């Protein structure tokens, strides 16, 4: 079993604090534009970190707090996440 206490986490996959996770995701979406859940997961893994809880649950909390927006992109056939100012073409799913 993996010890999940903060001191025991491998340096290559550190769990972010909620504040760090929110900042990273908002920065990613500002920098890269709308992303899928899998793209956000891959981007955080590339940086050697992961969101608190699971990425998708963390994202739904950020959406409820209105820190990020989310919706179904009918053209791409996937759920996407974005931030104000970096909406997908057409302003994002309604």
């Amino acid at each position, binding site marked *: *079993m993996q010890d999940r206490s903060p001191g025991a986490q491998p340096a290559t996959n550190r769990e972010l604090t909620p504040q760090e996770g929110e900042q990273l995701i908002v920065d990613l979406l500002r920098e890269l534009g709308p992303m899928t*859940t*899998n793209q956000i997961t891959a981007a955080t893994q590339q940086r050697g970190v992961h969101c608190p809880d*699971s990425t*998708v649950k963390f994202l*739904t909390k950020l959406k409820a707090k209105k820190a990020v927006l*989310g*919706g*179904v992109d*009918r*053209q*791409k*056939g*996937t*759920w996407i996440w974005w931030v104000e100012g970096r909406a997908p073409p057409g302003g994002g799913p309604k």
Partner: protein
Amino acid sequence: MTFDAEALRKDFPVLVQDWGDRPPLVYLDNACMSLKPRSVIDAVTEYYERYPACSGRSVHRLATEVTLRVDRARESLARFIGAPRADDVVIVRNSTEALNIVAHGIGLRKGDAVLVSDREHNSNMVPWLVQAQAVGCSLRAVPSEPDGTFDLDRLQEALAPGDVRMVSFVHTTNLDGYTYPMREIAELAHDKRALVMADAAQSAPHQPVDVGRLGVDFLALSVHKMLGPTATGALWGEHDALGALAPYNVGGSTVANVTYEGVELLPPPYRFEAGLQDYAGMFGIEPALEYLERLGMDEVHAHDVELNRLATRAVEGIDGLRVLGPEDPALRGGILTLVVDGLEVHDIAMTLDELANVAVRSGMHCTHAWYKSHGLSGSVRASFYLYNTEQDVEAFANAVRVAVGILRGGA
């Protein structure tokens, strides 16, 4: 239908609230948490407004009323599961806590083995795995058949070495709703002198559960899955088996006498209920169980199965959709678990919520070991209950069809 589910909906405030621009709520996450009827909400409120005191300690009238209500909650739990004695029922927060009490309390030793099914919730895996790590006992998962049913011959094979101290099986699995033949499991286990625990978190809300008929030694249930207040549950133990458990959480209200030299614990159930408890939640247990008893558990079961049968038929033919578990909906109770090839399960669930106000569960449903061993990243689970209707099933199936179409880029 065996009762008028539509008429029951007015008892559940969340089902009759105004959602504004959104469609009416279709709540199909009942395997996680059931909705609460007005009678339960009123009972919880009554505690805070009229009797916000402790139980089993003080002698003033507020505390006495709380003590009486806790006694009634315990008696109603005993009646509901056919337990001969109310003092064999420990009130806990959830099935998880009940399973932990037993896993920690039976005194497992190096060389002992514990058997579980291969479709256990983490709550019936992790406590045993932690014990295995701590004392050197082993945990073995007894495999299901490829069609999702269970063959008792597999259990006999697993019991054959003679090292099994405990058989702790889920009664109805939250993965796909299959109900294990618990009475037969208990008989085989007892023949080998093993104890038997049933995780009834998903069976007690949906079908008659009688500890005498099941023949088990311990049974765990979560009242919040059966209309009760959140974080209320119960552990029942056969009188001698419960009395033999060592409690791991002790302190106030668990003791008959304490000196600087030692402690004399109270008998069960009190030795397992340390410290002040969720008395507001306990107030809500009796009305929740009374609500179910008024409807009849055979009728609740028939209703859930009928909705599952309709839902299974309604989602048939959706491109790439597969239902997990036994083919016959009657063997899946009130749970319909599905995957859609090529689509992310969370995307489906979020789309159902966003477009149609349909609430389902997505992910591994705390049965990680099974999903990982089957190479699946998760599933979408719709779970039905007594207030769900044919209209809910229709709305769910339509929403799945639309969501799959959109997520395949077809809309």
